[in-house]
């Protein structure tokens, strides 16, 4: 398949692996954080860690939008879904995220009208088809998904749809990166930048990582050859004493991003004072809310939501996993109390969550390695 096969070419992958080996000194450790959950999924799915020399350690970052949603926001969404005459529409993966009062799927089982959609535009269409009900779309996601919500809000206003609103939980990528970079004792040497978020915000958005924190960044696509090439580019920067934002995903990402998408977001949404992140706490100006001009479509203004604040379960260490301080299998409940079928933490819910990706693809390898070390 074109645009897939060439980026999975074994010869190219082996050539890049050899180059990566040549760029590290035996015994040193280079810790590279992939920010995006899609990269985490691809790394485990294609077994890329097995191709890398032991000197290169991949750290999984906070870029899975499902994984960073705090339990309180899930409870708010459940309260919204239980409003009489209201249909709550959202993406499939959000349905299973556990809050303090269970998940949206469990709320649906109790009688709430919760529906899965692929796009916020589908939720808007649903509102048109069911004029007797109010349809609220539970919006989550980084800058990649926010444009779809923005376009939906613009259309809802243009069409004066009276029975549609958005419960906005969109987040921005820069604040959690800054929070990670400010973590005392941070052990991350470089970043693989998210691919499709960058198609919206552009590569210039990461310059602060090089200029203020002296860590190289390479924005990467998602296929195995893409990721290996990005790691090689990071190591080349290191070998040559450079610290820059480089773009491996040139077939999509531009330096300045997508001006139309950014304008649509800016027209409909604005940063909140702060937003609660799972594992990272409240981060200033890290989430988006709906602007006053679109207040008629803002579920938070239309409905009295509890604004629930709930602490994560003590046994769940999603926060440490999201900040790269703990690897999935090092969490005490990984694969036992917390599995994809019955997730305790959000990292086990989405297929892009580090724990779910490792559970699906990596856990069969790990016991063998540990067994051989112990032998």
């Amino acid at each position, binding site marked *: 398949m074109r645009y897939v096969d060439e980026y999975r070419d074994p010869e190219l992958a082996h050539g890049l692996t050899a180059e990566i080996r040549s760029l590290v000194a035996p015994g040193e450790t280079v810790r590279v954080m992939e920010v995006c959950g899609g990269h985490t999924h691809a790394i485990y799915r294609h077994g890329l860690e097995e191709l890398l020399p032991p000197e290169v350690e991949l750290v999984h970052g906070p870029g899975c939008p*499902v994984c960073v949603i705090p339990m309180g926001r899930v409870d708010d969404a459940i309260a919204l879904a239980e409003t009489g005459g209201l249909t709550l529409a959202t993406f499939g993966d959000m349905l299973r995220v556990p809050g303090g009062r269970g998940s949206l799927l469990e709320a649906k089982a109790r009688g709430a009208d919760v529906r899965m959609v692929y796009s916020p535009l589908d939720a808007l269409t649903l509102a048109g088809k069911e004029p007797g009900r109010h349809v609220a779309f539970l919006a989550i996601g*980084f800058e990649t998904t926010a444009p779809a919500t923005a376009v939906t809000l613009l259309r809802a206003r243009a069409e004066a749809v009276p029975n549609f609103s958005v419960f906005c939980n969109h987040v921005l990528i820069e604040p959690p990166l800054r929070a990670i970079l400010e973590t005392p004792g941070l052990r991350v040497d470089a970043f693989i930048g998210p691919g499709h978020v960058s198609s919206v915000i552009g590569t210039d958005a990461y310059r602060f990582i090089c200029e203020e924190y002296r860590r190289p960044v390479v924005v990467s696509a998602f296929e195995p050859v893409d990721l290996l090439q990005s790691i090689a580019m990071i190591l080349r920067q290191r070998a040559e004493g450079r610290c820059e934002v480089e773009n491996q995903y040139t*077939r999509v990402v531009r330096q300045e991003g997508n001006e139309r998408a950014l304008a649509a977001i800016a027209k409909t949404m604005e940063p909140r004072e702060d937003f609660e992140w799972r594992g990272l706490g409240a981060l200033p100006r890290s989430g988006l809310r709906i602007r006053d001009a679109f207040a008629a479509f803002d579920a938070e203004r239309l409905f009295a939501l509890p604004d629930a604040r709930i602490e994560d379960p003590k046994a769940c260490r999603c926060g440490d996993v999201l900040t790269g301080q703990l690897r999935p299998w090092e969490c005490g409940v990984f694969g036992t109390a917390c599995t994809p079928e019955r997730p305790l933490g959000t990292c086990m819910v989405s297929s892009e969550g580090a724990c779910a990706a490792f559970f699906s693809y990596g856990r069969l390898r790990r016991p063998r390695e540990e067994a051989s070390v112990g032998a």
Partner: protein
Amino acid sequence: MTTWAGCATCADEAMAARVLAVDGLEADVVVDGRVERVAIDLVPDARPGELLLCHAGIALERLEETE
């Protein structure tokens, strides 16, 4: 771009889609062999035959075709 059933909320679920026909701010595109309708508000000058990066029902960007 990707062919697995990933998470719709995640950026990696963005798919390469070939434009079949344009109808105002909507376009019929082929994704993984299926025809889907996407909004092209952000790429309003999209033309049949072009490859678009689509996510959550909208086209985000053109995909540059290079050999």
